[in-house]
């Protein structure tokens, strides 16, 4: 197991690189989902304001 993590001595470079690459994968998914839920809330608020103005 420790042999796997050492990666013939290159683990010190390899694991941070994988953490960065797949960290960016996860961050981008989370940010996209946040952006969508924010846009939904803003759109809802706009619709409510429009409804109040017309009523």
């Amino acid at each position: 197991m420790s042999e796997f993590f050492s990666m013939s001595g290159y683990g010190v470079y390899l694991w941070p690189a994988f953490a960065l690459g797949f960290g960016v994968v996860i961050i981008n998914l989370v940010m996209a989902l946040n952006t969508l839920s924010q846009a939904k809330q803003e759109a809802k608020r706009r619709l409510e304001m429009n409804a109040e103005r017309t009523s």
Partner: protein
Amino acid sequence: MATWTWFHRFGSPPWVYGFAARWTPWFGGAAAIAMLVALYGGLVLAPEDYQQKDAFRMVYVHAPTAWLSMMVYTTMAVAAAVGLIWRMKVAHAAAAACAPVGAWFTVAALGTGMLWGKPMWGAYWVWDPRLTAELVLLFLYFGYMGLRAGIEDPVKADKASAVLAVVGVVNIPIIKYSVEWWNSLHQTPTVMKMGKPTMDTDMLWPLLLMFLAFALYFATVLLIRLRAELLRRERNASWIREVLS
């Protein structure tokens, strides 16, 4: 005839919104499965390289992130061009949705490249043609996002940023062919050389699967961001009321 119906559908925000909502989980699920299998294949099943030993496994994170950084830009430039030529709102929205994703993956490509460069070349950074062109790509993404943020009128912002995106696309072939045009420290492509793969099959399939996984992942994130862009742009359309209820 059929192509035009297809084109018209993609020009309609409610249709695109529905399409994106329906397909996101499928693309996302497929991307996650492919990514996990490719990771296992690349980190566990693939044998070590005779020259680079286990350091070659960097390829499974560096190559897909670098490829995505260029693929996202190309998608953005094509969407921007479609938006300019046919004045298609959805296309401009798609281009805007690409930019932050592309910028992040350019950072990942540069960072993973630095971590591969240190043990192989002895330096985190060298002013090599490919590395420099990839850094220019990052500035192009920043320029595109800065330009959009700086122009208040959304129609003007779409047009100006689209022109920048289209002009900047010249950088993509420069990145791709830099290793062949100039004497570069960066290694030449390993997947295909003279039409034949230069890697062992056990090393190759996880890499190809990882490329597929990243493409599916990009589709997922793009569809999510595109929905957000469409909601923001279509202020008072009645379809928004329907999709939000």
